[in-house]
């Protein structure tokens, strides 16, 4: 237990020796992957609890009322004109019918009893939330590794992925994501802390300087942002020209 605590402390404080010891250990990627899974399963545990309660209760009349209130206040703020011949009352009536569909379907009987159904679906949602991060870890990692190799990095494939899997450790903070106000702040802190761990992992696995590691780690993100910005500005430009032509 003490060893695990020391390891976590070494990772989050970006202690160089902790990263080097981990890199020198056996089966780095296997260990990294198991740490990655363990951290995200712990971090996303509130998802399990929330989904279990929600699925067990089903879509209740209170939920329906809350959605109706939101819709009504939205209609007051932004009046939407419906199809020809539709009054606001008709629109509200249609909306209510839509809500009733949700309430009734959510309360339809299932072959397995509701508590078992709620439990199994909550486990499935929890697993999806936890392992959904594997795609980002590997997908982003492939691009970073490619840039790192082109920049003269010396990291080996499985060692690189094993070390960068430690990005999951600061994400343990996500376990408090359900807290109002503090939850989103902690998620943001976990993201920034995770980025720092990732850069450290890239630096040590590729034997880069700190500056080079920062550039290589953030390059894919910058490229994505640049492409998004170019696409968005091109879309806005063509939309503006269309509007001016129409006028």
């Amino acid at each position: 237990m003490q060893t695990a605590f020391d390891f976590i402390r070494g990772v989050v404080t970006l202690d160089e020796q902790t990263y080097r010891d981990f890199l020198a250990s056996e089966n780095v990627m296997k260990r990294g992957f198991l740490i990655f899974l363990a951290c995200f399963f712990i971090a996303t545990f509130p998802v399990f609890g929330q989904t279990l309660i929600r699925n067990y209760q089903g879509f209740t009349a209170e939920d329906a009322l809350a959605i109706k209130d939101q819709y009504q206040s939205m209609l007051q703020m932004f009046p939407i004109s419906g199809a020809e011949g539709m009054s606001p009352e008709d629109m509200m009536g249609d909306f209510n019918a839509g809500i009733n569909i949700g309430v009734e379907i959510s309360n339809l009987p299932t072959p397995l009893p509701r508590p078992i159904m709620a439990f199994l679906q909550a486990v499935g949602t929890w697993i999806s939330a936890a392992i959904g991060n594997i795609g980002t870890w590997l997908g982003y990692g492939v691009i970073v590794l490619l840039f790192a190799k082109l920049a003269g990095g010396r990291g080996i494939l499985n060692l690189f992925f094993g070390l960068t899997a430690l990005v999951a450790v600061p994400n343990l903070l996500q376990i408090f994501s359900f807290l109002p106000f503090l939850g989103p702040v902690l998620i943001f802190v976990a993201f920034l802390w995770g980025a720092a761990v990732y850069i450290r992992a890239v630096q040590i696995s590729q034997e880069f300087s700190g500056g080079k590691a920062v550039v290589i780690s953030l390059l894919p993100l910058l490229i994505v942002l640049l492409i998004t910005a170019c696409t968005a500005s091109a879309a806005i430009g063509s939309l503006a020209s269309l509007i001016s032509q129409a006028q």
Partner: protein
Amino acid sequence: MQTISESFGILWEALFLQPQPYAAIRDRKNPAGKGFVILIILALTVALVSYIGTLLTWATSPDLNAIQETVLKHLQTMSWWEMMSAQPQAQVVWLQIWDSVWQVMRLLIPSPTSGLMGFILTPLNLLITWIVFGLVAHVMAKIFGGKGQLNQTLGTTALAAAPQLLTLFTVFPLVSLAGIGVWTMLARYMAIRVTHNLSWGRALWVTLLSMLVIFLLLVVMFGVGAAVFSSMLSAAISGGFFDANSF
């Protein structure tokens, strides 16, 4: 039993992109044969687990007929339904489309009988993907100066299916997986690199070009298939096989 546990042991090691399991298969007497056995064991396990997942998804979902009835019942209370009732022809057409949509959904929604198809489709899919990728990658590797034999390429690329182990999570309902494609690409890279003793850059090119060639082949096949189908359909219509007025 020993073959099964040995196969899973090799796949588990191959998942973490270590060269040793790939090298061990490459150096066997009949690498392709061993790869085939490993792949079949993996495919049947994945199919079995997916089938259990399908059963649980079915058992935790309401009956589709009940959902259809519920939705229709509430749609008929909406204002647009009243407007449509003024035109009986439009209502008939609408109900025909409505029934066809639910017929399609019945085919797509998991059920105990439709899930059985997985026992045929999963092994078939894995085997075809393995053979096609193995053959294309071998040709590409030879072009890039690879030294391995076809038997060895097929043996090691069978291990590249190791990320399919992640599908074991789908034993629970509602689990969505991410990253299997990227992980498979990395495992294929490792297989080619170990088999053909190529540099990282060449192994990367072989992996990416092989996947690109297969993608282009699929595009051409679908294109030819669509062209043949549309020409047969137009010939059937123009030849009076169907009553053109019914379209």
